[in-house]
């Protein structure tokens, strides 16, 4: 049995595919590619796959990670990548495959941050509004948690926030946010900006995940 780490992406055309649908799609794609997917033992065998941090519905990405186990060893990982890409539906693509032992970390569970490009429509945006926002001690927002909706301070979950470009009434941010066990969605940051940032009023449009990190390191 061999465990391999896949870095993959999904375009905007498939951003409505939910996490569960993605897992089923991935399983079927691997089967179509004729690859010997490993199955768990027991009464209801399921494929041995771990998705690092499930992508929210509506989000595209170029930096997703998952580990997949196979019953065989693979010599040529580039060939494997081509085989997978031929079997995947349009919009999904494998970028690179690696032995996790050669990765920066061995378990996907150590991931704690994600980087995003986030688009919003803004009615107005005064210069420097994001700096004032980041200077706040606490940023209280209603956030969905495992135990229901709770007032949460999201400031510690924002690692970086900057304006990439502003084009007419469309603004693009770069954000580095908590991802994984503690997870912050870019949309909530845009909502928080609208509520608290002096001189910003906007509406969330879309986001694109660029990478998943552990500490400061790219996890692949």
């Amino acid at each position: 049995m061999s465990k391999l780490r896949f870095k993959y992406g999904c375009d905007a055309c498939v951003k409505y595919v939910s996490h569960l649908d993605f897992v089923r799609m991935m399983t079927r794609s691997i089967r179509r590619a004729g690859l010997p997917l490993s199955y768990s033992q027991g009464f209801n065998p399921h494929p041995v796959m771990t998705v690092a941090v499930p992508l929210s519905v509506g989000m595209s990405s170029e930096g997703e990670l998952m580990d997949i186990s196979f019953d065989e060893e693979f010599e040529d990982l580039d060939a494997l990548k081509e085989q997978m890409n031929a079997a995947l539906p349009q919009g999904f693509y494998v970028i690179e495959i690696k032995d996790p032992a050669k990765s920066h970390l061995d378990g996907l569970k150590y991931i704690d941050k994600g980087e995003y490009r986030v688009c919003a429509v803004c009615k107005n945006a005064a210069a420097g509004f994001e700096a004032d926002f980041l200077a706040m001690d606490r940023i209280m927002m209603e956030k969905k948690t495992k135990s229901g909706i709770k007032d949460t301070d999201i400031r510690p979950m924002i690692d970086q926030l900057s304006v990439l470009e502003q084009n007419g009434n469309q603004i693009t941010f770069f954000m580095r946010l908590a991802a994984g066990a503690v997870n912050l969605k870019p949309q909530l940051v845009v909502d928080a900006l609208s509520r608290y940032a002096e001189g910003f009023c906007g509406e969330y449009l879309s986001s694109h995940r660029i990478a998943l990190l552990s500490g400061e390191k790219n996890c692949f």
Partner: protein
Amino acid sequence: MRISEKLDQILMKVQKPTRYMGGEVNSIVKDPSSVEIRFAFCFPDVYEIGMSHLGIKILYHLLNSLDYVSCERVFTPWPDMQEQMKLHGIPLFSLETKGKVSDFDFVGFTLQYEMCYTNILNMLDLAGIPLYSRDRGEGCPFVCAGGPCAYNCEPIADFLDFVMMGEGEEIICEVMEEYCRWKKSGAGRIDFLKRIAQIEGIYVPSFYDVSYHKDGTIAAVAPNQKEAKPVVRKRIISDLDHVFYPDKIVVPFGEVVFDRIMLEVFRGCIRGCRFCQAGYIYRPVREKSPDTLMQSAKCLIQNTGYEEISLSSLSTSDYTRLPELAERLTAETEKAKVSLSLPSLRIDNFSIGLMQQVQKVRKSGLTFAPEAGSQRLRDVINKGITEEDVTRSAELAFRGGWNHIKLYFMIGLPTETDKDVTAIADLARAVIRTYDNIPKSERAKNVNVTVSVSSFVPKAFTPFQWEKQDTPEELVRKQKLLQGAITDKRISLKWHESSVSNLEGVFSRGDRRLSAVLAAAYQKGCLFDSWDEYFQPALWEEAFAECGIDPAFYNRRKRSLEEILPWEHIDVGVSNEFFRRECQKAYEGKTTANCRAACAGCGANCFGGGVCYE
């Protein structure tokens, strides 16, 4: 702004956005400018239902195999999506190219059940296509239909330009070829309909005039164009081993109702249960060979990645080469790690063994369909099984480790008495007794018998096509009677909504005067009538009243055997003479042997193939 751009603004606001996304594996996107014909294949229900249907899979890939045709799929948008579409000015669109349905050459509906009719009007409306065929001008798509309800499509006749009767694989290609010739000729809309009216199996409703007697019954149905055939005979595929079957099918992103490969082993049914329309309209029985089936199975497993394959037919146990197929298929599925499911299998030593072999994992419920509680009534409906058959099967199942058995029945059957209704409880008790009599060490711990009861709806093209249907009140009384007769806690009772069956009964044997009622009901907001949460009986009542039509005329009246039926100009190959004979035998409680045991002379041998010539 293009539809696809507008969609991007709304899909986050609706449930299950993958319903409207397209782009699934094996879906086929062609450049509209590269083809002669664009065919919008419409399923008048939500995506998950439509994508579970075998016919659409076959015809979608068949049409797309013609290089001059592009076939795209369209489903009824769920009400939340319809709201968003209206808000953003999005017309009904296809999944493949997100093209406006009104831009297509053909808009084809598959009619699987009567309660989808308002959805058809809704889809035409969302597409901006005039509802009535008479209001469609040059340049408008041709609206057509096929499928089991097409045989009596009179209630929606006013909305359809033409109908394809029977199995579609050949006829649809003939229509496509004729369309190309017609397009080149530059002739008008009616000319195309006249051309195709000459193809066997094509029915153009507007080419027929229906006149009525004073009492509302039909006086005559007569063609008003010389091209229209006095009687339209359905089409069948004689040789299923040499007909198109897709080697790949679309694999949805979201879960659909039947999310698996369906392997069609044969068409038709030898049984002749007198209530069952499917048992007559698909005659004669024609099988596929194990070689053909294995070839399909291998391709489909490889091209879809599906983890489950199921055999599909009306009664899989009647497949003459089942042992051979089962052996070869289990070898293949084990190798490919695919699970094999075997619905509609009669329970006997062979099938129990097979199920134990393939369903290694869970022993979920087994299903039997005695359909009626008493032997007398089972003979009336020609359900050729005895109480002993049921208990013997149940014993095999219990000894095989199963402990949940579902029994399917109907109430409201012709000649039914209260004794027949309570006999349902007796039969369920007999099954429980069978379990109790098996030594504890040889059976599972607990037992559960589910009695599932639906209401009988008389259908066209069956020996019961002249019968009256029970009122909803009478059905509820019978349900209560049955409930009172079930005292064992190990037996649970389930039944279906009877007011939906009531309306289904009106439309299944309706005539063209009902088109007005449908249009009125739709205008009032009736939609998704087969979904309990959307069915609005009060609005339907209003619609009938406004149109001055009494629904009881259609379902509460015992018709005379001589009455001209609304579908009498359609020929499914089974003669009315045969249906009259069967109806008489039903009253006498006499059974008719299945097609393989003895030919009952139904008329289906006119097609020159299948079981009739084995």
